[in-house]
């Protein structure tokens, strides 16, 4: 009797928290490959390199929770990043640049959201279209200016502040990682403990029933795209602070797919309504560690996506096993 119930408890834990198990496995592989010689800096580096992608994945996670998808995050990342650099170069204000990046990102999201929520177009198609549009516009603008990269003017008075924010740390923990974790905590709170958060799950779980229960489905879906856009915009600001430049052709390449992968490994169901935002932290970090593993092994960087693809399949496969046995 007790054996069975403890097995059930384990099963439940696996179902609810399999993203942690997957993360731990990947982390152990990382430790083994480095023969345990992993420094604290090595670990904080994982945080640092997860921050930008993680911020985007948080936004993606919200959209996925309502059962939608946003393929335009990589392109709007570059688009907003380029605009923010131009804006910052004009104003020289870090604070205004943050606000600008978030608002422009949210605006990009609003476009997606209205087309999906209000006009009832499929999210896949809408965001595929805006994905093409945002990047193309960004590249065109660069081309018109006769340059190849969006660059922050190093001569600006606040440049140092910006750069220190992007590359500094508090008690050895990188600033960007702290920002990401704070954002994640806020989203965890919203999705687990607010009425708005429950509406998101309701819409993703059964849109019709949610509507008949009084939830404004259209507005909820649009809001998710706006939130996603805002996160992407803020992520582009983080990237500016860290690297001070954007390449419209290559920056943010395939980010939409990595973000989706992080969300899926984090245990969020692509059809919506199921999963935890906390999973995204682990999903993103798992992906970052894979990068590190490949570097440590001295593998050809071109094989990077092969490994990531395989890990994604294995992770989802493991989650399926659980589903079938239930």
């Amino acid at each position: 009797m007790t054996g069975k119930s403890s097995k059930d408890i384990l099963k439940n834990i696996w179902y609810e928290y399999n993203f942690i198990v997957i993360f731990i496995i990947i982390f152990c592989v990382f430790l083994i490959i480095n023969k345990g010689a992993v420094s604290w800096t090595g670990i904080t580096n994982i945080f640092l390199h997860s921050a930008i992608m993680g911020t985007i994945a948080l936004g993606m996670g919200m959209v996925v929770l309502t059962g939608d998808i946003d393929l335009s995050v990589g392109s709007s990342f570059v688009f907003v990043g380029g605009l923010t650099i131009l804006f910052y170069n004009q104003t020289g204000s870090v604070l205004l640049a943050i606000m600008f990046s978030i608002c422009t990102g949210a605006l990009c999201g609003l476009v997606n959201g209205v087309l999906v929520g209000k006009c009832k177009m499929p999210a896949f198609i809408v965001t595929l279209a805006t994905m093409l549009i945002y990047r193309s516009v960004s590249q065109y603008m660069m081309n018109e200016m006769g340059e190849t990269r969006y660059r922050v003017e190093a001569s600006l008075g606040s440049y140092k502040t910006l750069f220190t924010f992007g590359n500094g740390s508090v008690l050895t923990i990188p600033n960007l990682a702290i920002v990401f974790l704070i954002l994640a905590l806020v989203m965890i709170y919203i999705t687990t403990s607010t009425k708005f958060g429950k509406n998101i799950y309701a819409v993703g779980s059964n849109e019709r029933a949610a509507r008949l229960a009084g939830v404004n489905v259209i507005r909820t879906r649009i809001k998710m795209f706006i939130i996603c856009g805002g996160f992407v915009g803020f992520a582009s600001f983080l990237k500016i602070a860290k690297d001070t430049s954007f390449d419209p052709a290559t920056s943010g390449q395939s980010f939409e797919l990595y973000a989706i992968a992080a969300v899926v490994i984090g245990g969020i169901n692509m059809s919506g309504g199921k999963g935890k935002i906390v999973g995204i932290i682990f999903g993103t970090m798992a992906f970052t560690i894979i990068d590190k593993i490949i570097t440590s092994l001295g593998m050809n960087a071109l094989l990077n996506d092969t490994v990531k693809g395989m890990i994604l399949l294995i992770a989802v496969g493991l989650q399926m096993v659980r589903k079938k046995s239930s």
Partner: protein
Amino acid sequence: MELLKMNNITKSFFGVTVLDNVAFKVRKGEVHALLGENGAGKSTLMNILGGVYTKDSGTVIFNDKELAGSSIRDSEQAGIAFVHQELNIFNDLKVYENLFLGRELRNRFGTLKKKEMISETNVLMHDLGVDINPVSLADDLDTSKKQLLEIAKTLHADAGLFILDEPTTALNKEETKKLFDIINQLKSKGKTFIFISHKMPEIFEIADRYTVLRNGQFIHSGDIIDTTPEEVTRYMVGNSYSDSSMYEVRKIGNTVLELKDYSGQGFNHVDAQINKGEIVGITGLQGAGCSELMQTIFGIRKSKGGRLYIHGNQITHQNIQSLMKSGLAMVPANRKENSIIPDMSLLENTYISEHVLQHRRQHIYKKGEIEKFQHFTKILNIKANHHDDYITSLSGGNQQKVILARWLNTEADIILFDNPTQGIDVGAKSEIYKLILKLSKEGKTIIINTLEIPEIQKIADRCIVFYHGKVQVVLDRKDINEETVMLHATGAVNSNGHRQGVEHDW
């Protein structure tokens, strides 16, 4: 000689027993009417025979062989053809393509012999006396023609036993007659029919024998020639008349909901006044507009004209949220699609609507919510283990009670019920009636739409009968009985009580 013997058939869905040791026998070459109220188990029994559902226990013997397989294909191969109540027509295919779907005629190279198929379809349609062009798109046919195509589809399959599940619902008088001619013609060739219908005159015209089911149990079987419609109805309805003891006379207040010349998709020019504390039944045949009316009142569909007043105020913003604010709630039909949020717990399913109204304070205080939930489990007698369990772990009746709790939680004082006892077993049904009566005693106003007249008889103060999207008659409690309601619902008498020529011309 018995062609079909179904013995001790038992079937339950999610713990609700819908067939309990049912026996059903059909002789070769007869038209056998299978009768019973909605939810009696007719469709389930036929779906087991047709291989759509698997039985939990029991045996099916067809043509002296046990039908062991339990797939649609197995049943088809044994020679059982099933004309479903819902149309299984592919709208994007042409008529002949629908007819030959899965058994297309091909030549040696595997390409389709279109000409042969078209001409064969022509012949079949001619035999049926139906004017359908084989190459027109199924989507372009009206409902009655689709129904005939559906029937033609099974006739085309060379079967020995035909199951016709309410085949005349969408047919007019003439088309029904044609169908009966075809049935008689096939009967003379030794084919056997199981005929499911609610329309007594049709049954007495076409059937040889009958079997009655009630609440998932076998009740009676016999020859049509030896019985009368009244006797058959008694078998079908059973003692449920006498259950009206739950009802008590209450004090009825002022008008709280009023419709003036209200129109929308499926209903026209409806005038009605509903008073505080009243229970009003709305009924009509499938497609009479009752469900549409409810959905429009609750803002799910757009109204097309007229006015809606709640508590004396005209409703101008017809959206769900503002109607909820004016004290309206609706327990929709089709619980699984329209009510249940499957990935959410009992607690979450209960508080969601109240949180839509109280959205200013965003934080959820779980402790308080749990207390409220426990209060509802007590007054509604919800059988559940833990408030964090998924709602899908409950039985249909308890799920429905959680949905009711969701709306009571909003403190709505007018509650619309759209077919609330669908897919709920008998015990839970009478519990829901009792709850409805209790709520009305506490001053809630209740409007209930159901096709099951005994339900209305048990609880309603008044009954509005719809026919063709219009109010046909408003019956007082003393006048509500199955026969009167059906006469009005089928348009057999007009609102003044005069009998008209029976026309099934909808």
